[in-house]
């Protein structure tokens, strides 16, 4: 009897140690990666990073054109993807709530959410780059919008479902037409959660590299035009990290640090704000 008790206790202790160890193991990588990025990136960050263009091999430079290209493509992707995503999310949560279409879309949206982003990149290549004959910032923005779309669909769907039904019933009882209930009452109630979703989506597409490789490509020079190849942070990091030049490696680390700080900072801020507003 006693032996069984001891064995059960030991097994339990082992499970306890394993679960704690697994958590430490997971956090260990997070800290290792952050530590490396900080250590390598901090030394490479200077004023020139934000004022100079990407340099030719073997000389100094910055990432100004890449930052600009990334910012403008993310902006455009949000302009395209966010309204469509919110509209589709509205259909799933409100206007088509129990329809067959809504359940199919809801299912496939989750598949699209985890689909390989490189395939999206190839799709946009076939769709825009091949038909127009050249790489372009527009193609990159469309690819990013396609990554953003399912994220916004899912989060706005969930945000609208969190609005209590009493609010809908009260509005309908006042005789307000359905579209006004959605546009003027439900959106207002769910606004914080919808915005949270869009911002988390921005954090996600900011680091996406694969869909930009064959769409925006890269551009070593300043280009304000979205009609041609456009420099962007992830692809510059990729190309510079894979190159044999030390100067380029440094720039890649500096870009990696800025990107990581941006993505993690946005994530943390959004989560903290969302938690505060829900309290």
């Amino acid at each position, binding site marked *: 009897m006693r032996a069984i008790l001891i064995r059960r206790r030991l097994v339990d202790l082992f499970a306890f140690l394993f679960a704690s160890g697994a958590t430490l193991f*997971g956090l260990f990588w997070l800290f290792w990666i952050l530590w490396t990025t900080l250590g390598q990136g901090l030394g490479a960050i200077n004023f020139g990073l934000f004022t100079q263009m990407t340099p030719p091999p073997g000389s100094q430079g910055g990432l100004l054109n890449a930052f600009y290209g990334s910012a403008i493509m993310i902006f455009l992707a949000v302009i395209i993807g966010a309204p469509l995503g919110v509209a589709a999310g509205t259909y799933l949560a409100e206007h088509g709530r129990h329809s067959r279409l809504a359940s199919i879309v809801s299912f496939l949206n989750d*598949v699209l959410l985890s689909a390989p982003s*490189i395939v999206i990149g190839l799709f946009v*290549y076939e769709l825009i780059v091949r038909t127009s004959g050249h790489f372009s910032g527009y193609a990159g923005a469309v690819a990013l919008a396609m990554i953003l779309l399912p994220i916004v669909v899912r989060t706005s769907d969930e945000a609208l479902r969190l609005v209590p039904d009493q609010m809908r019933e009260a509005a309908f009882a006042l005789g307000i037409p*359905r579209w006004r209930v959605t546009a003027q009452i439900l959106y207002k109630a769910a606004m914080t959660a919808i915005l949270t979703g869009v911002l988390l989506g921005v954090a996600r597409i900011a680091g996406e590299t694969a869909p930009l490789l064959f769409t925006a490509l890269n551009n070593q020079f300043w280009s304000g035009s979205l009609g041609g190849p456009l420099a962007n942070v992830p692809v510059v990091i990729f190309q510079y990290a894979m190159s044999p030049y030390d100067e380029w490696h440094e720039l890649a680390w500096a870009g990696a640090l800025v990107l990581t700080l941006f993505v993690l900072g946005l994530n*943390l801020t959004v989560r903290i704000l969302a938690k505060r507003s829900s309290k």
Partner: protein
Amino acid sequence: MTAFTPVIRSRSAAADRAFNLVTAGAAWLVLVVLGATAASMAWGGRLAFQTFGLGFITSQDWDVVQGKFGALVPIYGTLVTSAIALVIAVPISLGIALFLTDIAPRWIRGPIGIAVELLAAIPSIIYGMWGLFIFAPFMAAHVDPLLSDTLGGWPLIGPIFTGPPIGIGMLTAGIVLGIMVIPFIAAVARDVFNAVPPPLKESAIALGSTRWEVLSRVTLPYTRSAIIGAIFLGLGRALGETMAVTFVLGNAHDLSMSLLMPSNSIAAAIANEFTEADTELYRSALIALAFLLFVVTFIVLSAAKLMLLRISRAHGRTH
């Protein structure tokens, strides 16, 4: 009731219809994106499928000069690295989920949960860079030689662990993938564990069960299909992950038993070679690879979603 004249009512009915139409159209767009992606990959890859037939999947030739393309090496590399990733990620993720639901003191659950989610938020290119500059040299200096000297001499499994200590290869790629997949599986598993009705656990505890017994006899049996769903979700991610793998896999079109040897994966081959593909057939072969990847991940992710749906239905959620 002057506000409800028939004119206004019919106008608002029209606005309602328009609103309905716009939102339904946006919902259709999700289906269109998914369908058009599949169709476009099938269309773009048709030349390769026509030229090589089934041989495209079974041949390991990847000869750019002679225009011979077989997908066996990238398919093999994708499957092996994903398998290594799951071997690492599944036990660790379940451990983290258990820690976050049952073991950790309440005040620490939030911060650790957020830390795990941050691990998922780090862009994959950062994993790739860290893998190339930090982790691969570490593997080359410490892990690869150790494996070669010990396991490498064993019968049967020896060839799997012999190879030059270069740090770049399927084992390194698999480990990096595993680290990337941990937060995805752990987050879903945590939610699934939390969905177990408290009375079930409480009854087990009241009968004197230890934490391990509650997990193994109550929680896991109750959540089995959803946990498999979470694992499939991680598998879907691992199969399609591009940047992290591209950096550390070595882009070698050789079929090798050894996990220490460089290899290729579908996503890495596309990322590395697509902009350099100078013939129609070459490009088509890469798009055909993307088509295969898309179909496989679609099946895996659909299966994951179906298995996760079961528990949310049982849990009374509406979606």
